[in-house]
């Protein structure tokens, strides 16, 4: 089934890339270059030029990086739907889904890499300095493996050779399983931190899975609509409605798992410090409610469900954009908010010191951190656009 659908679809490189295409490419290339500049600035001076400190050790670069990694895993879901779940409407988009996933992942990894204090020491990892009791080390393997799997999976889609085609289905399944493990691994980075009270592995992993599906589908929808507009190709209403429905379901899933996280943290886990989620009381309230819940979930949900917008393209476009903003805010609240809550050293006592014990930690990202994050987005979309320019990734049409 999948094979025949792939064969029926015509794919074409972006051959007559007009000014618009190159203008968009230039914007992303510039973002990437500026991101590199920000890296050079941070690397030359040290991290004192950032807003990160010994209390908030992970900041804005990590928000962007984890956003891109989660979105990568979710974006590949379109390919999974076509291959594993045999949804015909998604089968022609498998290639775009995978190329986008790989590009986003590389963008995210580069941001993490460029934020490291000693990037030159990474070479030690290649020579065997890997600690397999570390979730982080496992993720390095999961991320590299994901890119390798995407490469083979893409080959089974693109190559008409029988050997390649024979592997199509199994690669789809491998990719699906790998994605779930990868997102679980990413959630576990936070989940295994026993000292941090707002992270619990049983709450973080399902939440990250849901967030990954939501962000991936939103970024995919944005990319699909804009690229098709740019290359003057058609998208049918059926597909737009399907994507809208998927987004609605994923928004509800994220809301459910966010509630579950709150319930688990408040009622199930017996934290010695008592109140645990900073997002409801300490400095992150408005970001959480306004940014994550209203802008990132409720407004898109109203747009996607409501009868007031008949134009599916703009509804999906606006909703996806708001979901992306909400997703970035959510990750900020999780990552920075989670660190802002003081560690409980003495349950039932108040503490103070010269090292910010007992107080809610403050963080304000500097421009270099934002630029590094945007640099990752720039790199991801540069890679995507180059791929679309030289490879037969895009279907010539996705009309009904």
């Amino acid at each position: 089934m999948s094979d025949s659908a792939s064969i029926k679809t015509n794919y074409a490189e972006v051959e007559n890339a007009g000014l618009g295409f190159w203008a968009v490419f230039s914007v992303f290339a510039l973002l990437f270059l500026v991101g590199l500049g920000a890296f050079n600035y941070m690397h030359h001076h040290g991290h004192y030029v950032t807003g990160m400190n010994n209390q908030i050790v992970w900041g804005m670069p990590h928000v962007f990086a984890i956003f891109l990694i989660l979105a990568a895993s979710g974006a590949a879901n379109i390919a999974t739907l076509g291959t594993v779940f045999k949804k015909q409407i998604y089968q022609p988009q498998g290639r775009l889904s995978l190329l986008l996933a790989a590009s986003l992942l590389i963008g995210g990894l580069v941001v993490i890499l460029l934020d490291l204090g000693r990037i030159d020491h990474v070479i030690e990892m290649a020579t065997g300095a890997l600690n397999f009791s570390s979730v982080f080390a496992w993720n390095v393997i999961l991320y590299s493996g994901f890119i390798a799997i995407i490469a083979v999976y893409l080959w089974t889609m693109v190559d008409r050779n029988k050997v390649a085609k024979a592997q199509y289905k199994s690669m789809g399944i491998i990719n699906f399983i790998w994605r779930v493990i990868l997102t679980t691994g990413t959630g576990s980075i936070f989940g295994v931190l026993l000292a941090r009270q707002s992270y619990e592995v049983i709450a973080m992993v399902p939440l990250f899975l849901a967030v990954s599906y939501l962000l991936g589908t939103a970024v995919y929808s944005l990319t699909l609509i804009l690229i098709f507009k740019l290359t003057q190709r058609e998208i049918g209403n059926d597909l737009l409605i399907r994507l809208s429905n998927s987004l609605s379901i994923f928004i509800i899933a994220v809301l459910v798992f966010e509630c579950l996280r709150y319930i688990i943290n408040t009622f199930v886990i017996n934290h010695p410090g008592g109140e645990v989620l900073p997002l409801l009381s300490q400095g992150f309230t408005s970001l959480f409610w306004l940014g994550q819940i209203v802008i990132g979930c409720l407004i898109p949900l109203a747009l996607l469900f409501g009868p007031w917008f008949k134009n599916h393209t703009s509804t999906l476009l606006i909703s996806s954009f708001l979901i992306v903003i909400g997703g970035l805010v959510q990750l900020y609240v999780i990552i920075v908010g989670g660190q802002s809550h003081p560690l409980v050293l003495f349950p039932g006592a108040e503490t103070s010191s010269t090292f910010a014990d007992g107080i809610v930690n403050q963080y304000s990202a500097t421009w270099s951190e934002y630029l590094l994050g945007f640099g990752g987005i720039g790199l991801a979309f540069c890679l995507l656009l180059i791929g679309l320019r030289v490879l037969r990734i895009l279907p010539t049409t996705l009309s009904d």
Partner: protein
Amino acid sequence: MKKNNFDTYRRNFLSLVGLTAATATIAPNLILRQAKAKPDDEAITDKVRWGLLIDVNKLTNGGDACVAACKKEHGWGEEPHSNEAQKAQWVRKVTVTKKESGDTFSLPIMCQHCETAPCVDVCPTGASMKRIDGIVQVDKHICIGCRYCMMACPYKARSFVHENLFDQRPDTPRGKGTVESCNLCVHRIDKGKNPACVDADPEAIIFGDLNDPVSKISIALKENDTTQIRADLGLNTGVRYQGL
């Protein structure tokens, strides 16, 4: 008569040999245990586990002396470009006020040298490591500066170096972009000395081998009511407190 003299001589000789042998066997152990000295070419051993016992009631100004000695020994906290939240603090004086009773006390908190250290578990490269004698420290040569260990440490005992450093202490190599923390003055321990904080407040802090049942620290741990901070986490810390 002659025979008797010979017997006496022989007995005295044998006694002397026996005494010498006994002294040669026992004395080095006694002397070594006292001074803890170890030749440079001798490997460290897992037979010992170094630890500290801090008596909160005997501390000089709640740990000020200890903090000052550590700072002087290792030279942290003088980073000119970093702001207060970015400057390194290997040990800090924490003031604790119990909510119910209102009782207040202060104590120094540094790396607790956990037996099952979360920072060692999470480090992707193995830079955050535990020596077989229980000292937890960072191998600066392979630390990539990801700060995951800082996220994982329940005691917030680690600092990240946010800038270039100059005029460092010869025994404390530090570097921009790497993580650092109390290493129990490993350079002093390996020379048979006490950590700097112990020498700065010897009445309040006992340093020694937790594995040795007759060491001063082990005896003090047996005789007194001592605590581990956040013992509920089950990390079996090498730093213990008395009088909390």
